[in-house]
């Protein structure tokens, strides 16, 4: 099952709303499980068992380990553990969107929705560039590892700045080169055409989309009532 990008965006905003609004951990677990279920429905490889496990570990730390360990440690760990835990619905949503949505669908849907062409291209390129960026980062890291560029520099500040330069500059250079080459390829294929392109990958919203939207609105409404009226 693949949902529409619009459904995903609504789902994202609403789950973020729930995440910041809701303070009942049982409700939160329910949301996480519902999102996991949605991930499982969305095809192979979308659901990441390790991510769910991490959530479980965070819960365990907060509710079982914090009460029994010295407070000094709790003071150190409380903020990151709790913040990441309560942000988890958003993380689950982002994983769901990133793994199931193709650039072509985003472009087609946004074009149909009359989002400005510039914004559409920029968003499409940003999504497409994420894996390239990761790859570039890995290459630079490996090259640095072989090179041992900071050997022999003892001053820690000089060392740090050299290190940053060695990572940042190749990254920037390759970002600029990549965007130039991408542009050349894109304009020889008519990206600057003023007319409305064919949106082959556009699909109208289906029943599943409306169900998911209604459900997520329902859950959000429940969170609001639960927070402000019941308690």
């Amino acid at each position, binding site marked *: 099952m693949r949902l529409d990008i619009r459904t995903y965006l609504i789902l994202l905003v609403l789950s973020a709303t729930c995440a910041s609004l809701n303070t009942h951990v049982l409700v939160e677990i329910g949301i996480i499980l519902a999102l996991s279920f949605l991930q499982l429905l969305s095809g192979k490889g979308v659901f990441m068992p390790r991510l769910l496990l991490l959530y479980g570990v965070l819960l365990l730390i907060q509710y079982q380990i914090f009460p029994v360990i010295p407070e000094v440690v709790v003071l150190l760990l409380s903020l990151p553990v709790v913040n990441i835990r309560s942000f988890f619905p958003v993380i689950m949503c982002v994983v769901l969107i990133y793994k199931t949505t193709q*650039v072509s669908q985003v472009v087609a849907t946004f074009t149909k929705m009359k989002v400005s062409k510039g914004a559409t291209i920029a968003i499409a390129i940003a999504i*497409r560039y994420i*894996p390239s960026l990761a790859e570039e980062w890995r290459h630079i890291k490996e090259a640095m590892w072989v090179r041992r560029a900071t050997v022999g520099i003892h001053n820690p500040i000089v060392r740090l700045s050299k290190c940053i330069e060695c990572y940042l500059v190749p990254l920037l*250079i390759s970002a600029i080169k990549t965007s130039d080459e991408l542009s050349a390829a894109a304009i*020889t294929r*008519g990206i600057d*055409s003023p007319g*409305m392109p*064919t949106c082959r990958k556009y699909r109208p919203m289906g029943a599943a989309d409306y169900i998911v939207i209604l459900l997520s609105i329902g859950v959000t409404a429940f969170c609001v009532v639960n927070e402000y009226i019941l308690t």
Partner: protein
Amino acid sequence: MIEMKNAGFTYGDETAESESSRDTGIVDIHLQIRRGECVLLCGESGCGKTTVTKLINGLIPHFEIGNFSGEVTVNELDTKNVPMYQLAECVSSVFQNPKTQFFNTDAESEMTFGLENQAASVEYIDKRLAQTIEELDLTPLMNKSLFQMSGGEKQIIAFAGAYLSDTDIVVLDEPSANLDLWAIEKIRGVMEKMKAAGKTIVIAEHRLYYLRGLVDTVYYMKNGRILESHDVKDFFALDDQRRIGMGLRKLNMSDLFQITRTAIQAAEQNRLRVENLTLTYQKKPVFSGLSFEIFLGEIVGIIGANGMGKTSLLRCLCGIQKPDKGIVRFNGRRCRTKDKRRLCGVVMQDVNYQLFSDSVESECFLGNAGTTAEQVNAILNEMGLSACKDAHPQGLSGGQKQRLAIAVTVLSGKKILLLDEPTSGLDYQNMLTVSSLLRRLSENGMIIVVVTHDIEFLETTCNRCLELTANEMKAIDSAKIADVFYQNSIASM
């Protein structure tokens, strides 16, 4: 169809500070290409062949900054006055670097991108897509994300995009630069189909052998001018002496292959010994139980089919990747990751990521604390880089970047040099330079391991050739290398 009158182009704008960005691209080009003709532009790096392709697809004057003169008409359209998107309807292009020419993340949309921008109907696009997939036999690729594909597979998708768009003219700018034999064979197939469909094809290329039987006319360029035009029969019949004089790569793949250097036997201490090396990646076995030896003063070429893990092998040797099992010994002593890092220098396939400094000279000092200025000067001289001592490493040509990376490795006192596809984008002259350089380094007592599918380079450089298979390193008889290459490329198809 395509006509150029007195066309010229100078790169860079008048205010550019650096001189390197104000090269003369081409001067005084007169060219006429008939409908359905297949034209090859060849010549050394920097001769202007890529620039000519840009004149046809409109990147000049619409994208590149510089000074354009003369007149170019494509399909009766004056490229100067016609916007890019209109040219895109009759010209499609494939570029060198497969990594940076796709816009989408899925193969299907990538192929239809051109037609979608032309606002063709969905029915027509679907029809063309089905045709293309069938005619080019792409079904196995269609379910993969573009990011899971190898460079060769990506390039095939780029070709398929050009094929699907069904434009009258196809412009190819060094399409085989980053490809292995399997992919080259495959793109040649696509080009044959394009030609059969009556397309006009313009190719700028270093590797020539695979174009035999495909091109109709050959233009030889030098210093931005078209020097000679050849009928295809005469061109592929050029003798070796003439061809080498022109600085061109081999014209015939099946020429007798002969390793010119002899094998070396070294004393027990002076060798790199690998025992039982095993690697699995993402739970899939890459190779297992590899054992082999390489002697000091030797250059060993490693060949192997696509996806056999040649690059992973190099990464294991230098310590970037940890193998599951296996011991690497140097001079009889077992190397841990730390030792490998100290011993091995690597020149990766994409050398761009390995250069960090703001000048060639400072690049040599980076990470090599004890180096003296004399040593740097000597090595730069040897590498033929002393003229561009102050230039920025990222502004150098591909061959120069590679030589700089080698220079840095030598300066850092490393004993083993590993190279991954060092000659994939190089012309004949640059390939020879790398080759003679490596030979000199090995004579001075360095161990050099080269992963390559460039037969010509193997032939001029290596002492020995090993084939990487799933569970052993096969020594290969020098006379049979061409056969192995050929079988590998058949097997991966």
